[in-house]
């Protein structure tokens, strides 16, 4: 179903349909994440991928126009580069340990400490939250700062353009 969504998104020239389909894709992805027991990530995917970014893309569509222009040149070189990257990545996965193999390195290093220590040490039953907020507090602080910086960047960009003389069409 996800592959079909992506295929239609590539072929489709009506950008409104593409935006809606990308929302559909996000919901399907969220379902996959729930099936993988990653409920926190699924929630983020559903709210950000399907909710906020769909609204933002629709807002952008409103400003630009709803049909995609025909491409001027056939982008063969980028296609070749991306296919080569896909090939390398797929080749790389053949060396990974099998899915949810308890002997693989990620389950050996700090993971036992988190699983056994999260509840007695932090009193937080949800291990994801415990790791995110407590054990990896610095990383989450950096992440919050990144979100803030991104917002500040958008503000800086859009403000200046408006000051220079109204809403000129976006490139």
């Amino acid at each position, binding site marked *: 179903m996800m592959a079909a969504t992506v295929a239609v998104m590539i072929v489709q020239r009506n950008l409104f349909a593409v935006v809606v389909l990308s929302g559909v894709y996000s919901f399907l992805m969220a379902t996959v994440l729930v099936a993988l027991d990653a409920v926190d990530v699924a929630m983020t995917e559903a709210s950000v991928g399907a909710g906020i970014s769909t609204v933002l893309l629709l807002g952008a569509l409103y400003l630009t126009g709803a049909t995609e222009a025909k491409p001027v040149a056939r982008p063969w070189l980028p296609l070749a580069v991306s296919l080569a990257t896909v090939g390398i990545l797929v080749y790389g996965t053949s060396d990974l340990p099998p899915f949810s193999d308890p002997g693989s390195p990620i389950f050996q290093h700090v993971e036992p400490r988190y699983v056994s220590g999260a509840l007695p040490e932090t009193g937080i039953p949800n291990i994801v939250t415990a790791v995110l907020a*407590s054990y990896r507090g610095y990383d989450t602080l950096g992440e919050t700062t990144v979100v803030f910086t991104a917002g500040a960047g958008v503000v800086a960009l859009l403000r200046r353009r408006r000051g220079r003389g109204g809403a000129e069409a976006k490139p």
Partner: protein
Amino acid sequence: MKRLLVLRVIAKELIPFMLLFALYVQFHGELGPGGGFQAGVIIAATVVFYAIIFGLPTARKVVPDWLVETMMPLGVLVYAGVGFAGLFLGGNYLDYFVLDADPVHGQERGVFWIEVGVAITVAGVMLKIFYMFAGRGRSLDE
């Protein structure tokens, strides 16, 4: 979309529950799925929903620009402030064990406040981006 009665009534009924759900996701994040990031996004989505139904100018009156712009750095400051609180109480930076006499309680307190910080920043940034995008053309309700 201002004139559609059904949409307006349904939106008015739904928005309190959406905000309540955001708070649930925020404060229940220690027990179930969720946390500051998701709660911030849901809060922002609620206001976006309101703006789509009632028009951007009305939403800007409810959640004014200065508030949104204050929320963006405020969340980061709350987060960093928790770190400094640990520092002043004799621990390391972002060390929650010293925030309460009982270390486990200290952890819970620290996590609670940093999640609040994350939620404030995320909601502020999402709303600010939405305002900037939607405010560029005409307002959405036309």
